[in-house]
């Protein structure tokens, strides 16, 4: 025993160096990753909260002066309020559609064996392989024909096709995390299938479903291409900003950017724990 310990010590001598450079690499990589995410957000915040002169002036202080001029101007800008309302309506509709369609699909995938099940799972993911521009133009033509163009409902349908694969996969993994025996026990205790679902499965998956709904909301909230193509008067905030901000002064662009990033950021942060369920890691 003693010999082994001694030789360990001698052999281990050069280790601190290697360990130190390893630690340095680790912290450097971590810092880089954090900066990658935080610096743009920081710049957005600082420039939004600075006066227009500071935004275009030099040198920068890097500290916001809490000048609300840009924000106030942005909020008072004609059309912003309406676009914001549109964005919320479309995102809420998208959220509802994706959960109402996605959760039953996720449940069926996790509970029933049916022919073509793996093919179906694959197809669900495949919908994400088509570039949106490819879909958006034919869709725009079709929407004009059936009168869905320039409506919140029509845009929500398109956003639902974007959010649905995630809703299906997240709920599939949520339902799979709930042992079938719990449902079977409920059946033997006097429940039919629907009661068992409502009294046992639903309470257990509700937090995860909420998370997946919020995720669908942010997908719609952030989506700009389909929104820009499919709407003209009823633009969502993203499409509206895309249209008007490239002709606006710099400080206004920052304010608009922040207005877009902030809600998505807050929502995703609130449900971050459940996002991992999407990859099948978080099995309760």
């Amino acid at each position, binding site marked *: 025993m003693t010999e082994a310990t001694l030789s360990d010590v001698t052999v281990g001598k050069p280790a601190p160096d290697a360990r130190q450079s390893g630690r340095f690499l680790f912290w450097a990589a971590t810092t880089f990753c954090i900066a990658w995410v935080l610096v743009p957000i920081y710049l957005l915040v600082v420039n939004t909260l600075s006066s227009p002169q500071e935004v275009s002036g030099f040198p920068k202080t890097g500290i916001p002066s809490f000048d609300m001029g840009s924000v106030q101007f942005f909020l008072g800008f004609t059309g912003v309020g309406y676009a914001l309302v549109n964005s919320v309506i479309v995102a809420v509709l998208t959220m509802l559609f994706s959960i109402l369609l996605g959760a039953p699909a996720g449940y069926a995938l996790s509970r029933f064996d049916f022919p073509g099940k793996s093919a179906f799972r694959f197809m669900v993911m495949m919908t994400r392989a088509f570039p949106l521009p490819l879909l958006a133009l034919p869709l725009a033509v079709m929407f004009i024909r059936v009168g869905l163009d320039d409506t919140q409902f029509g845009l929500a349908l398109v956003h639902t096709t974007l959010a649905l694969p995630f809703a299906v996969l997240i709920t599939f993994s949520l339902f799979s995390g709930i042992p079938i025996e719990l449902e*079977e026990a409920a059946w033997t*205790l006097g429940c039919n299938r629907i009661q068992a679902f409502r009294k046992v499965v639903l309470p257990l998956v509700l937090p995860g479903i909420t998370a997946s709904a919020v995720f669908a909301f942010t997908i719609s909230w952030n989506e700009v291409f389909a929104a820009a193509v499919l709407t003209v008067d009823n633009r969502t905030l993203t499409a509206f900003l895309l249209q008007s901000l490239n002709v606006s002064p710099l400080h206004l662009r920052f304010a608009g950017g922040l207005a877009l990033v902030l809600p998505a950021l807050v929502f995703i942060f609130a449900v971050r724990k459940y996002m991992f369920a999407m990859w099948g890691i978080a099995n309760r």
Partner: protein
Amino acid sequence: MAEIVIKNVAKRFGAFTALHSIDLTVADQEFMVLLGASGCGKTTLLRIIAGLDRPSEGEVWIGGRRVDHLPPRDRGIAMVFQNYAVFPHLTVYENIAFGLRMKKLPQGDIDKRVRRTAELMHIEQLLERYSGQLSGGQRQRVAVARALAMEPDVILMDEPLSNLDALLRLEMRAELKGVLAQSRTTTVYVTHDQVEAMSLADRISVMHAGRIVQSSSPVEVYRNPATHFVGSFIGNPPMNFIRAEKAGRGRWRVAGLVLEGPESGRERLDFAIRPEDLREGEGGLPATVRVVEPLGAHTLVTCEVEGSLFRAVLDSSTSAAPGDRLDLLPVSDRVRWFDPETSAAVKAA
């Protein structure tokens, strides 16, 4: 009165036949154990009685009512699952009350029944806890209490003790037997543990490859196995088997020894004897000792008889040592014979 009658029940999963036309009657208040190795169809049969699986063919009757088309909730059954299936989002109290609330009993009755069954299972101090705060044994108790509180006609148990550690399993086994005997409920209990089966059952149905091969009292199953499989599956150490050659009418040559046996048209039979039914003595089966394991009360001696492995449970005073030659005398009324082709028991004349 809740007698279970299973008529001609078969279950096929695609090309695989899990159950071949099962006929079984469980008497009212009987404790029936379905015993078999994993994959023999015992859990499938239990799930068909529960209504969680549908039979491909046949009928299931509970208490004189045909139930095979009914959902589980209309069958008057309660079930205890292998992994307990205690609802994690409800307290122990609400778990036990779950089925009673579904029955829409008045709150006063629910409370009375929950407290009574909780007391019976010794979990009255855990009523406000959630499943995550319970140990495996406690969850097991909750699952049993939840089933008992339903006051069902039939309780179905699917390997309820297999997830518990050995000591707890012994304790729960004795307790279950007491509680279920007291409740006078017809019970069907699935296990692969033969000791559990022997200790709990009024009657054991041994299952093998989708068929019930024997259905009788624990002692009968042990003493008079209906097939070669039952003999080798039940008992630890298992039964010894050796090939016997015909040596005249009702006489068979076993390892050079001629023994009285059944009259049979076969040229060969399997001679079988339990390890504890062998004695050291003159004129027995010639054996070469390989391993000697003193177990305190007895000594387990593993030897070789004509190339076959033989185990004998001898008195601990034995002086047998590895390499010794030993004569093993079978207790004559404990010898059993099996047909090597059908593997069924052959009764001595």
